[in-house]
């Protein structure tokens, strides 16, 4: 197996997240109306990091939750049942701007499911999407508002996001 290609190292990942945080602040002047929801699994630690960065800029805590989309997927009868992870949204999303966070944007189906799942918790004022990597190959009309890095990929390649929260060194790599 060839060595995986590194797209982002730890420093570049941190820089990308910081830039995303500033873009979120620029887009949303009223920081008190913004909540962050990370999509299980890769989006959850990134959502927590983004929440911390936003809190540092705004000077107040930013509510941060996690969302599992397994029960809302559109391919449940075509695959082994997914591993359902906890959904923890200990705040009301109604009327808020929800920044959905995921690690890699690919087909867009996870985000479609996430928007459906989020609706069960209330009616957000608006939903914005932040992703660390946009690798293309969309199958649905979905576009991210904030992107850490656009990475053209072949459909068969795998993009892996390694995170310190999972016991690895921060990095994004492509495996052929």
């Amino acid at each position, binding site marked *: 197996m060839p060595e995986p290609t590194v797209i982002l190292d730890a420093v570049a990942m941190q820089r990308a997240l910081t830039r995303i945080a500033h873009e979120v602040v620029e887009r949303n002047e009223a920081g008190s109306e913004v909540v962050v929801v990370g999509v299980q699994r890769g989006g959850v630690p990134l959502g927590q990091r983004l929440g911390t960065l936003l809190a540092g800029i705004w000077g107040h805590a930013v509510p941060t939750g996690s969302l599992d989309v397994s*029960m809302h997927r559109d391919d449940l009868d075509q695959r082994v049942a997914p591993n359902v992870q906890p959904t923890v949204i200990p705040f009301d999303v109604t009327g808020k701007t929800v920044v959905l966070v995921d690690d890699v944007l690919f087909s867009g189906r996870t985000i479609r499911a996430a928007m459906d799942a989020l609706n069960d918790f209330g009616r957000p004022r608006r939903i914005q999407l932040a992703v660390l990597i946009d690798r293309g190959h969309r199958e649905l009309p979905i576009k991210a508002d904030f992107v850490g890095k656009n990475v053209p990929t072949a459909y068969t390649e795998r993009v892996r996001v390694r995170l310190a929260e999972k016991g690895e060194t921060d990095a994004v790599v492509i495996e052929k």
Partner: protein
Amino acid sequence: MSWSRKHLLDIESLTAEDITTVLDTARAFKAVGERAIKKVPALRGKTVVNLFVEPSTRTRTSFELSEQRLSADIINFTAEASSLKKGETLKDTARNLEALNIDFIVIRHSASGAPHFLARVLNASVINAGDGAHEHPTQALLDTFTIREKKGRIAGLNVTILGDILYSRVARSDIWALTKLGAKVTLCGPSTLVPRVFEQMGCRVTHDVDEAIRDADIINLLRIQHERQRKSMFPSLGEYTSFFGLTAARLARTKPDALIMHPGPINRGVEIDSEIADCPRSLVLQQVTNGLAVRMAVLFLVNGGKGPQEVAP
């Protein structure tokens, strides 16, 4: 962890990992039941038949609500109202149902092995909701879920199952599930209802109730199954209560954190004192709540077990 089974027929054939997968998945579904919107679209467009050839209220209600909360379409059959009453065989009934393109059959039947038979002759997924005195897998899964939720673990716990073991499908399923997960299971009741042969399933058998519950972390009471006993297995209900009933005096001699379970329906004053059934150490109603979550998890997992066995990215 991943689940690749198309049916849930019994606990005996599951691995400890399978059981843990159900329990972990059920935790997520329990959270769904606590939301304002308690419904998810996981089984949208799927049809479930609840084929209850033997009477049941709580299991059928629990399955029905689980299916509704997964957005499935539901058909209910009961023995009294179906063509089984007119002499149709189970196989014909099931094949007629399948001709309607159904996806799941949840079956309760008085004959042991009926779900296994359906699984052989049908394409639909089969879920055993209780077959004769054989197994009642979803009850064992909800019992195990409730114990793990309260005690944080299963392995190493002392679980005493007290009552009619011989005729109880709940007991058999519970024994399989608990021993696979590493609990130490003690069975107790009249020797006619708790024969020594159960030691072969890895349990301890005793006929002294005070000894059986003294070190228990969980006391699981089972109902006397009048309907399955062909002859009288003990002299009288009164004598059963005085020898084996869980009374306040007996409970006072157990570990202070021992918890009480009962799959229902309860015969108050027979296997358990009425006030104990309602005391804070009783998990009876939590078992009912958890039953929903566990049944949702089973339907969700079995649905995935029907598809091609590859894991999507």
